[in-house]
């Protein structure tokens, strides 16, 4: 047994190292995929080592093996199928869903542990670190689970933004009550399991209310934040069992996730507090009301658009979520190749938060084999627009909305945008005149040098390519 315990410790060490190495490799494009595989291998090793080598304080090995394997197999099959079937456009909500599962898992562990602890230690007071870890695990795990499910629902379009009156005050109050009940519980001499259930329910409620008022466009940031919450909850579990793999893995994700969240906010030029407190969807009503005075929109025919592109020196494509929805990445690449054959320089300008997540567009275009060096980040693209003949905005809206620059009342004011209006002509491919994800009107569409090409992005581009080939 001595040997197996040491072996287990060594394997946990290897697993911890694989998580660190994996995260490190995940932050460079070339090594990212292997990094993911390494972390996955470390995880698999740690799981099986726990099953076969773990002994508790009394020296008993892991029991209930059939049920454990049943759970593992069921989880593996369901998780694998879900992850393989999900469309590229729905990746963000998938991540949110899996994150919620982790949070729920952490909360369930703590719930179970509390029952066991109070059975075995009824004579002692509950004022100790062990109970504190259990409580924190339950609170954070529940918030993470409920919040992730709301974020999932929002990205699926099933849940709208709600802001209750005095919501911020209510949220703070709720948080105080939860913490107060936790403190009260710890001062008791016997485990009040009912009180623990109340804390769990209130934490779930807090998770819902925490995410509900935050606008859909900010969901990536929220998911990233909840991701680091779940990491913390896992780390508290590690504390409970003195398990170093859980401890390092959890804390690593907790701190890396927090930094990632801040990086995402920086990409939108907003602070984390602004994202969390400034309810995004709330003000959209006023902005929309002004739209009728914005001017007239001008449509362009397919033929004119094809000719415009054909004789341009440089064309820049600005992809957005609409491109992902229409699955237009392959036809966009074909459009690009046809133009390149005719000596037109084609680039893609990627806004850091285009789509529903940072990097969403890069992944999508990479799927269609668009060359890596054709993708420009916002800082590279913006100086080029002045000397660009045609900008093709495909299913993007908020990231090219000039209101972000000059309208302080706009909810997206202050977010850096792609300055497409500086180019000679902007062609916007769009289904209809509906507002973007932030729910606000876009003055760009009414500009003198803007032309609208209405229709599904994919079929519009298919027709454009056909027209191009006829020229």
């Amino acid at each position, binding site marked *: 047994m001595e040997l197996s315990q040491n072996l287990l410790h060594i394997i946990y060490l290897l697993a911890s190292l694989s998580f660190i190495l994996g*995260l490190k490799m995940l932050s460079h494009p070339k090594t990212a995929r292997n990094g993911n595989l390494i972390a996955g291998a470390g995880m698999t090793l740690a799981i099986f080592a726990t099953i076969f080598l773990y002994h508790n304080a009394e020296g008993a090995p892991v029991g209930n093996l059939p049920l454990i394997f049943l759970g593992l197999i069921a989880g593996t099959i369901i998780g694998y199928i879900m992850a393989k079937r999900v469309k590229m456009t729905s990746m963000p909500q998938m991540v949110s869903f899996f994150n919620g599962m982790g949070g729920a898992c952490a909360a369930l562990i703590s719930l179970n542990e509390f029952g066991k602890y109070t059975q075995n230690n009824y004579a002692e007071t509950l004022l100790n670190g062990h109970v504190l870890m259990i409580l924190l695990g339950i609170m954070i795990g529940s918030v993470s689970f409920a919040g992730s499910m709301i974020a999932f629902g929002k990205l699926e379009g099933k849940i709208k933004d709600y802001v209750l009156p005095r919501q911020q005050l209510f949220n703070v109050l709720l948080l105080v009550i939860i913490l107060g009940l936790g403190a009260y519980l710890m001062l008791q001499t016997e485990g009040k399991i009912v009180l623990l259930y109340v804390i769990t329910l209130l934490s779930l409620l807090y998770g819902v209310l925490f995410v509900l008022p935050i606008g859909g466009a900010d969901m990536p940031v929220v998911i990233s934040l909840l991701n680091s919450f779940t990491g913390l909850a896992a780390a508290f579990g590690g504390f409970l069992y003195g398990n170093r793999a859980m401890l390092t893995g959890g804390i690593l994700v907790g701190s890396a996730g927090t930094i990632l969240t801040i990086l995402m906010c920086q990409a939108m030029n907003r602070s984390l507090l602004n994202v969390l407190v400034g309810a995004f969807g709330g003000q959209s009503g006023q902005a929309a009301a002004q739209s009728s005075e914005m001017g007239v929109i001008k449509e362009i025919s397919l033929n004119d658009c094809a000719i415009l592109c054909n004789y341009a020196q440089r064309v820049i494509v600005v992809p957005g979520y609409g491109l992902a929805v229409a699955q237009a990445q392959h036809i966009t690449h074909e459009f690009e190749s046809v133009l390149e054959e005719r000596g037109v320089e084609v680039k893609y300008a990627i806004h850091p938060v285009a789509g529903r997540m940072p990097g969403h567009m890069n992944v999508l275009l990479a799927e269609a084999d668009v060359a890596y060096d054709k993708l420009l980040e916002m800082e590279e693209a913006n100086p080029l627009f002045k000397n660009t003949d045609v900008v093709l905005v495909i299913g993007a809206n908020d990231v090219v909305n000039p209101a972000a620059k000059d309208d302080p009342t706009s909810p997206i004011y202050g977010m850096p945008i792609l300055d497409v209006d500086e180019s000679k002509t902007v062609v916007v491919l769009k289904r209809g005149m509906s507002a973007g994800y932030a729910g606000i009107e876009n003055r760009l569409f009414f500009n003198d040098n803007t032309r609208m090409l209405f229709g599904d992005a994919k079929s519009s581009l298919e027709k454009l390519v056909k027209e191009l080939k006829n020229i």
Partner: protein
Amino acid sequence: MSEVFHFLGQNIEAIYILALSIFLGIEVISNVPAVLHTPLMSGANAIHGVVIIGAIIVMGEADPQNYLALALGFIAVILGTLNVVGGFVVTDRMLEMFKKKEKK
């Protein structure tokens, strides 16, 4: 107050790990390009699935007669596995697309 010190003293090793891991997490992530934000978040998401180990331990120690504990543990194992497997597979699918292009 003495309880607090007692707790810290008892867990000093874990607290070391905690403090060092926080800095490590920050260091490891700091220079990530925006392109990789989503895959990185997804990868980190998979890594906190390590909570599955806790679920296995809970399940392994549960009294076979205690059906509530068994049910909770069983659900925890399934959810934890979902987090791990789903997390890594989704991340791999995202990154697959970067890979394809490099071979050319």
